[in-house]
């Protein structure tokens, strides 16, 4: 068969297959274009989840007649003025999106250049372009995509349900909206009520900071829980700046889906983020739970290659270790500084559970909320007859309530300590709290004296693939600090000579393989630390005050004071809170005083 140059239509359809694999991808490209054009307001309309119509209008800079005609041509872009792929500041840079969309749909663009008297229109249908003609539009650009994939029926078959496609499109818009709180976004679907409506906000002199505005925008997208329980991050390292928000560990999820990274304003997916977040939270969260984080990384364009993924969803860092270190360090610092913030979510859940009750003659409780009454009855009934399980102690001296966790007033069910604070009350789970204290002390001990190492009588040779072996050997110093001494052993193996004595007789091969995987995937050796900490955790659990032990007032107050002095004491090792705080205002709400 003869070799020939493919016609432009075919080339564009091939490119379209990579750039727009579903309606959400087209929506993302069009919204990015609007953002690049300096829009303040972006409106998206979707019919049938975007399959029959995607309409994106903006109030940005617009295009003149020549530009409109060029915009739909392949590799035509206004965004690489110096042909310099090393300094990309815009979301688009390849000039591929519009021709790709045009190749597989009925595309029309109307645009009016800022300050110009007229608007112009161009249309592309299945790859063939119409002539530019005058049109009517008050400002900005309006891009209409009808019947996406009508020209490539195979692709059409792969679309999911209208609902799934719509949700994916909304997701794409929201992701971009997180990074641009000063732009207003609306998304309207088949229903009358908009799917998304976010107003624009600017930092102002009245005291709203850029942080406040971002927090509000993230709250609108991720939920108020996040806005209320996230720690602001701001850290700088060698030309990179990391800002954004880290959720408190108590606000955790079963998957890592709610972890977002934006690099120079571009939403990206990066394994590096998952590893760094896991490393930063490993002390305060169980291994199978995931925190919520939204991070914005800004750095020199020359150190970040954005041209690595067809949908521009991934980037490559020149120095990934630097970025990882920046993220881990910034998150850790924020978490350590926030050691004492109990989640307001927990307090709110507590309030919701504590519905007012009506006592019946038989002693059973009837809550005003019927569902709760059923659940509560078996617990409440015996309580009404038996003597109260709380042991009150003398009223606290006023000075003691000045401590953040207040002065102990009573122990309930020999499990919970109730303390009065300057502005409310605190309930402490004594076992969880003490376990955390013991664990932190053991960790400090290991940090102070180093990990003791058992030398192996029979060194273990662990076969790995050569890249893994090299990576592991390169980390030998770091691993030795954690008690694991190994070195390269030929090209495809390492030999382990010493192991942390704390682990006892352990599966050395398995450990080395896990570590190799982690170093490759996440850039760090987490599981060794995790295993050591797991042993500490088990010992801590056995060595701490159990639920069911009576504590006197001095013991309770001592526990409260130690908690105040210990970092991370607000959560137990598994990310559950060790105490809940109710402010006076919240208590008043309970009784309808507010």
């Amino acid at each position, binding site marked *: 068969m003869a070799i020939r140059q493919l016609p432009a239509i075919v080339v564009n359809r091939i490119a379209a297959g990579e750039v727009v694999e579903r309606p959400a991808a087209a929506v993302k490209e069009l919204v990015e274009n609007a953002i690049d054009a300096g829009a303040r307001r972006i409106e998206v309309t979707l019919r049938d989840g975007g399959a029959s119509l995607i309409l994106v209008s903006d109030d940005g800079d617009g295009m003149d007649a020549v530009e409109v005609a060029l915009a739909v041509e392949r590799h035509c872009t206004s965004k690489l003025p110096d042909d310099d792929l090393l300094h990309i500041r815009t979301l688009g840079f390849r000039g591929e999106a519009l021709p790709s969309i045009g190749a597989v749909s009925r595309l029309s663009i109307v645009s009016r250049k800022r300050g110009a008297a007229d608007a112009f229109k161009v249309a592309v249908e299945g790859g063939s372009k119409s002539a530019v003609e005058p049109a009517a539009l008050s400002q900005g650009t309006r891009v209409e995509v009808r019947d996406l994939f009508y020209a490539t029926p195979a692709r059409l078959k792969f679309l999911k349900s209208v609902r799934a496609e719509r949700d994916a499109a909304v997701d794409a818009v929201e992701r971009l909206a997180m990074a641009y709180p000063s732009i207003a976004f609306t998304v309207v679907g088949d229903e009358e009520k908009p799917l998304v409506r976010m107003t624009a906000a600017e930092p102002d002199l009245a005291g709203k900071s850029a942080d406040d505005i971002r927090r509000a925008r993230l709250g609108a997208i991720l939920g108020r829980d996040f806005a209320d329980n996230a720690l602001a991050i701001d850290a700088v390292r060698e030309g990179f700046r990391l800002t954004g928000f880290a959720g408190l560990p108590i606000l955790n999820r079963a998957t890592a889906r709610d972890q977002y990274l934006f690099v120079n304003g571009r939403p990206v997916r990066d394994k590096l983020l998952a590893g760094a977040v896991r490393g930063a939270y490993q002390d305060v969260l169980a291994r199978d739970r995931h925190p919520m984080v939204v991070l914005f990384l800004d750095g020199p364009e020359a150190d970040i290659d954005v041209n690595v993924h067809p949908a521009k969803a991934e980037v490559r860092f020149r120095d990934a270790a630097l970025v990882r270190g920046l993220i881990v360090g910034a998150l850790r610092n924020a978490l350590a500084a926030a050691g004492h913030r109990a989640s307001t979510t927990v307090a709110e859940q507590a309030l919701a559970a504590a519905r007012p009750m009506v006592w019946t003659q038989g002693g059973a409780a009837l809550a005003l909320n019927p569902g709760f009454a059923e659940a509560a009855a078996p617990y409440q009934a015996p309580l009404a007859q038996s003597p109260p399980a709380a042991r009150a102690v003398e009223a606290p001296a006023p000075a003691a309530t000045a401590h953040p966790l207040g002065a102990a007033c009573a122990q309930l069910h020999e499990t919970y300590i109730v303390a009065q604070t300057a502005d409310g009350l605190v309930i402490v789970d004594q076992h969880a709290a003490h376990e955390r204290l013991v664990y932190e002390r053991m960790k400090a001990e290991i940090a102070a004296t180093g990990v003791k*190492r058992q030398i192996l009588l029979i060194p273990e040779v662990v076969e790995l693939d050569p890249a893994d072996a090299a990576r592991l050997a390169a980390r030998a110093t770091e691993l030795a600090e954690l008690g694991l001494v190994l070195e390269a052993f030929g090209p495809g193996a390492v030999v382990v000579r010493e192991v942390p004595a704390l682990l006892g*007789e352990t599966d*050395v091969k398995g450990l080395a393989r896990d570590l190799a995987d982690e170093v490759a995937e996440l850039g760090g050796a987490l599981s060794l630390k995790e295993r050591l900490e797991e042993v500490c955790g088990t010992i801590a659990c056995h060595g701490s005050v159990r639920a069911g032990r009576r504590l006197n007032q001095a013991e309770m107050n001592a526990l409260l004071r130690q908690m105040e002095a210990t970092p991370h004491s607000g959560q137990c090792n598994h990310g559950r809170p060790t105490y809940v705080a109710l402010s006076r205002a919240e208590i008043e709400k309970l009784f309808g005083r507010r």
Partner: protein
Amino acid sequence: MKLTIERAALLKALGHVQSVVERRNTIPILSNVLLRGADGKLALSATDMDIEMISAVPAQGAKTGGTTVPAHTLYDITRKLPEGAQVLLELGSDKGQMTLRSGRSTFTLACLPAEDYPVMSGSDLAHNFTISAADLKRLIDRTRFAISTEETRYYLNGIYLHAAKSNDVNMLRAVATDGHRLARMELPLPDGAAGMPGVIVPRKAVGELRKLLDEFDQDVAVSLSDTKIRFAFGDSTVLTSKLIDGTFPDYDRVIPTGNDKVLEVECKSFAAAVDRVSTISSEKSRAVKLAIERNSLTLSATSPENGTASEEIEVRYSASPIEIGFNSRYLLDITEQIEGEGAKFVMADAASPTLVRDATDGSALYVLMPMRV
């Protein structure tokens, strides 16, 4: 099958076989014990597919035959019968049930057919020798503590039994190691053992064998192939076990030969001091440091949380001073095995294997790897 047996004899035999039966079984018949009557005897046997234990007791009654019944149930019933009782076992005509009668008690037990019970064949055990119960006991006791429990290194999960030459004398050797320490015990090679393959006897079989050795002090007939080993105590009790299918490491390489720093301690007082000093270390690893100089040993341990401990004891030592750390648990495991008064530590430096021996008995040898403290 219809047999009468002394309760005491039945209880003892059941005691041997039922410990092989796992409490939880996915194959129902493996919860049972196989009973076979023949020639004035009742043979009881149980297996977990890796180990088979057979124990025979005298029984009166003519009819031969066999069945299987739940092992733990039969054991518990027998245990609760009064001392001196006679037990009558009778298999029903449809073979679905066995009746047990003793005094005024009657039990019927559900049976599974004897033909379905897995039996380990022992016809191919080509190597045979006899060893005294006392010698076998010593081979096990001196090495058993060092067996690895880490299942990924299955080939270390047992005692390596093999023939070897020490100073040109043929020896039977038992070796065990967990990769941190090693124990080796040897005895003159019994007749018939020459040419035997090196075999790894799994930990569970070692445990069962050791229990039997507490009850028998006669000679034990050992037969083995490269897949199975059998220990027969007279004609009453026979333990057969599969061997671990793996290669034991070339352990000779880790036994140091050039160590020159010799420390001699009084074993009991050394062990007591190690035990005392290690009380202070809070961690699981319980490290102790040995600072040794001319005729003096200072044991010490520190814990940032609990404080420090140290104790000085008199020793014999004339080499250059050395500081070396060990896991105290490992030290105690070894000193426990030393029966003589003195123990001898032969060291090179703080990062190389140390040799430990009974000062007066050369048959056992221990190698211990130091800890970095």
